[in-house]
């Protein structure tokens, strides 16, 4: 149990560092097309064990979001989007529940539920995250078109990154 906590805390710190020190600098679209943003740190919430109490997931999401915000100079933006995603997590988990239900000590990873399940699970939540993120960044529906475009393009590159992580590292928990 405690080794599980250590593992998750370690993973969270590592993901935040990779996000703010590496992926923050990546600009795939070139100077005139800032539509691709790679966000990998939502993985920290996606990979939490299913048994973690729901309010605790929200608090963890808030803390991670605020730390990332400090580095992005955008107080509240990442935190709000990540908390929104964490809020939807139990809903998506219920939607994708296998017929037998979730057994105790199960982890939302491809090695346990299959790659198709993981694609659906992480895809829906990541899309929700980006929609919240770019909507809150613009803070007005006037830029609806560019919000949607940014959401889709950033979602695609981040989704590929997150799936690659799942395939290459293939975590058991």
């Amino acid at each position, binding site marked *: 149990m405690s080794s599980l906590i250590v593992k998750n805390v370690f993973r969270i710190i590592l993901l935040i560092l990779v996000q703010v020190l590496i992926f923050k600098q990546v600009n795939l679209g070139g100077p*005139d097309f800032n539509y691709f943003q790679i966000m990998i740190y939502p993985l920290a919430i996606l990979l939490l064990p299913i048994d973690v109490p729901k309010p605790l997931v929200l608090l963890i999401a808030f803390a991670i979001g605020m730390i990332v915000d*400090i580095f992005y*100079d*955008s*107080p509240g933006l990442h*935190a709000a989007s990540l908390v929104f995603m964490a809020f939807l997590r139990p809903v998506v988990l219920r939607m994708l529940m296998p017929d037998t239900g979730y057994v105790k000590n199960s982890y939302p990873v491809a090695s346990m539920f299959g790659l198709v399940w993981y694609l659906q699970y992480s895809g829906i939540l990541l899309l929700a995250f980006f929609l919240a993120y770019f909507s809150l960044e*613009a803070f007005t529906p006037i830029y609806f078109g560019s919000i949607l475009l940014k959401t889709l393009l950033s979602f695609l590159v981040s989704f590929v990154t997150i799936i690659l992580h799942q395939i290459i590292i293939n975590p058991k928990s």
Partner: protein
Amino acid sequence: MQNLLRFIFRYSHFFTFVILEAICIYFLVSYNTSQKEIFIYSSNLVTGKIYNTVDEIRDYAQLERVNDSIIRENARLKAALLTLSADSTLPDLSITNYKVIPSRVINNNILGRNNMMTIDQGSDAGIQPSMGLIEDGGIVGIVKDVSQNYATAYSILNASLMISAKIDRNDHFGSLIWPAEDIRYMELTSVPKHAEVRLGDTVTTTAYSAVFPPDIPIGIIEEVDLEPGRSDFSIRVKLFNDLSRIDVVYAVRAETTPERTEIENRMEDE
């Protein structure tokens, strides 16, 4: 009471969500106005230190380019000095003395709509809020918050910023804004319809705002548009400098700024 507690407990997931989102939105909305969150921004010592370390590593890769630009700037300054001493018979018209503080950009965002940057000099070096940041060949930003050793600044690529600028050839002025599309271009608005605007004209800063010294080149006019029914041009200005690769910047401030701000504020109060 027990029922109430049970109710709150049962929906604890939802309540936690609402409370946390409320906190986040509060932070988001007070983002541009309050100085209280200075410790949240990256002028905060801890993140400042981390960025500094990363920047030091990155600097080695950029040494050559930085050298080039410093050499170029040196040459230009030397040339300016020579012309100055040649013109020494003229009366001295420069009433204002400028304070110039060199510093380096250690964190620079260009991907968002309201971009910010962090520089590695703070109040100890004499940086003050609302100083202009310029570099060799263009303007860079405006200082927002200052801590002892770091300062945060609005990048000129910040959609909420308006900068006073003019067409150098005929002194028609307007406001320079960033439409949040392309980091190489800004837009000069409110230039009246009767002004003669030519492609290729240089756009420079004006003396109307105390933030930047006058006549600093910003960019050249690349596209002019006059929409029917409008009384002002919308002018696309290509920036001279590339905001995605800035390193050494100079914070400038006219010595007379406090006095000027005071009298301008008094005018607004009345």
